[in-house]
């Protein structure tokens, strides 16, 4: 993605290389630095509960970024995301349980398995589109869940697979604070990779395919190949997220990977805002924290004791309502809201919208 000029005066690009600078203005550098400080300080000031929420958000971010690349940029719908997370988690669990392999083997192996699954389940995308493709990706989910459940029962791990804390550089990773930094690094790496892909040839090919396959082909883009690249790369990323999830929890069970999880990931990219990496992060934040927000709200209501049994049902219903509200009123998601707020400040005191935005 070529970057537009920032909304400040006096910022000039003097070479084409300047177009690739991540932070062009002093204010954006300052904001990024401030954000980094907040992220780095968080585990030292947050309660264990908040820290666990933060790690959950980081894990969800990796999966949401991958799905955003696949659906929000390459235009390929998938409901197989929970299946891929399960594939990564089970690859790690099985390799640890059966062969006692270390972190540096199990996590790349999970990525490899994810990539292979992506290749196989990306093949229908060469013929199918939209809803039909989504249904074909469901097959991936059910195959992986079936295999995982079979492994659990055959090996007698009917409640799940226990995984010991991994060792990195001879140090056992167990403390929540250490996990937070590892997952933060993983999420930043996923963001960096996604950003890089989007600003180079593959990303442009994906966006062209999403806009119009026929035109993309007439421009010399080998559509089938680039669709498969999208499936392989994003599936590998998702499976790595699944592997990290398994290692963080220290426990894998197929129960954790229901179809509802796939739908939550789809919700993340819709609520966050299709076609935006920042949207994927915002969506991951929103969808992960949402049930806790509902729970806290209900606990604060008068007569909380009587409502306690209904929390689960209210959660699901509220989630559905929020999805519908976003689809109807803000199809651009949280990023759409953010853009409007930003434009308002940029254009103040003139009440107008920036050209090119409806």
């Amino acid at each position, binding site marked *: *993605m*070529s*970057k*537009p*000029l920032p909304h400040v005066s006096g910022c000039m690009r003097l070479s*084409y*290389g300047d*177009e*690739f600078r991540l932070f062009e203005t002093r204010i954006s550098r300052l904001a990024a630095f401030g954000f980094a400080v907040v992220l780095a300080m968080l585990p030292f000031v947050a309660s264990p509960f908040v820290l666990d929420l933060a790690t959950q958000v980081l894990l969800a971010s990796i999966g949401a970024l991958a799905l955003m690349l696949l659906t929000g940029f390459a235009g390929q719908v998938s409901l197989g995301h929970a299946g891929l997370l399960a594939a990564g988690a089970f690859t790690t669990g099985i390799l640890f349980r059966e062969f006692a392999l270390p972190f540096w083997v199990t996590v790349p192996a999970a990525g490899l398995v994810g990539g292979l699954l992506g290749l196989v389940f990306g093949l229908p995308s060469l013929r199918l589109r939209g809803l039909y493709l989504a249904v074909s990706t469901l097959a991936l989910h059910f195959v992986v869940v079936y295999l995982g459940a079979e492994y659990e029962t055959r090996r007698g791990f009917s409640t799940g697979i226990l995984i010991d804390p991994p060792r990195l550089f001879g140090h056992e990773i167990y403390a929540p604070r250490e996990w937070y930094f590892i997952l933060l690094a993983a999420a930043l790496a996923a963001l960096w*990779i996604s950003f*890089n*892909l989007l*600003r*180079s*040839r*593959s*990303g*442009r*090919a994906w*966006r*062209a395919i999403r*806009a*119009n396959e*026929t*035109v*993309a*082909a*007439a*421009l*010399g*883009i*080998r*559509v089938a190949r680039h669709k498969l*690249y999208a499936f392989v*790369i994003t599936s590998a990323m998702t499976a790595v997220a699944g592997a990290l999830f398994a290692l963080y929890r220290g426990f894998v069970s197929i129960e954790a990977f229901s179809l509802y999880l796939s739908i939550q990931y789809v919700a993340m990219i819709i609520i966050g805002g299709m*076609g935006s990496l920042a949207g994927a992060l915002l969506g991951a934040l929103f969808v992960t924290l949402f049930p806790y927000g509902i729970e806290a709200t209900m606990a604060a209501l008068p007569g909380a004791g009587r409502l306690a049994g209904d929390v689960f049902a209210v959660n699901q219903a509220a989630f559905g309502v929020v999805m519908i509200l976003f689809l109807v009123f803000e199809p651009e998601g949280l990023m759409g809201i953010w853009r409007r707020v930003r434009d308002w400040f940029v254009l103040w005191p003139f009440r107008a919208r920036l*050209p*090119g*935005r409806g």
Partner: protein
Amino acid sequence: MAELEIEGLTLAFGGLRVLEGVSLAVDAGELFALIGPNGAGKTSIFNCISGLYRPQAGSIRFRGEEITGLPPPEIARRGIARTFQHGELFGAMSVIDNLMTGRHALMRGAPLAEALFLPSVRRAEIAHREAVERVIAFVELERFRHAPVGGLPFGLQKLCGFARALAMEPRFLLLDEPSAGLNRDEREDLARFLLRIRHELGVPMIWIEHDMQMVADLADRVHVLDYGRTIASGPPDRVLSDPAVIGAYLGTAPAAS
């Protein structure tokens, strides 16, 4: 030898015969106008050349090589670039990104290197960005280079489509009604760009056009289709005064009885 040769091209959708044995040949550096009433099969010829349609019979040869039946990306990679009647740009992408997408086939694919944005990828991006900037300067779109194409007025969008085809560094251009929907000034600009391509780049073009004045002024040769058949072909002054051509456009007077 002709750059592009079409022989006996026949295309039908079920019982609807769209092209019936059309033959034409475009020479090096030629601005070759393809005209005819609506539904005559002009765009269908383009779709056959660029591989989007498969003709039932006939052959298309580019620089002596048979390209009939090749998939569209392989034809584009041989240097045949095209524009579309309705622009068909990627509206959410900026002008730069649309043009960079046009250079897809000229760039080397290396998804892993791209994921890490290795120095080789950065160098390639910069080199191709420079080439795109030359095209932007050629079509005078400098002011809009960062704008999302979907927000530009229609005339500029058409110009972007033209620029995207030029960014492919084509050896042959297929222009599908580039002037449709343009105002007078934009048409004059387009005429200037067409002449510059012809004289400075020497790229041969097939140009579908409805503006007969432009065709008469600019084209080297004109080929007229009606109901999928060739009704005239030759230099503009002769073809445009051909009674069959005038009849196809305006209808013939019923014979006095």
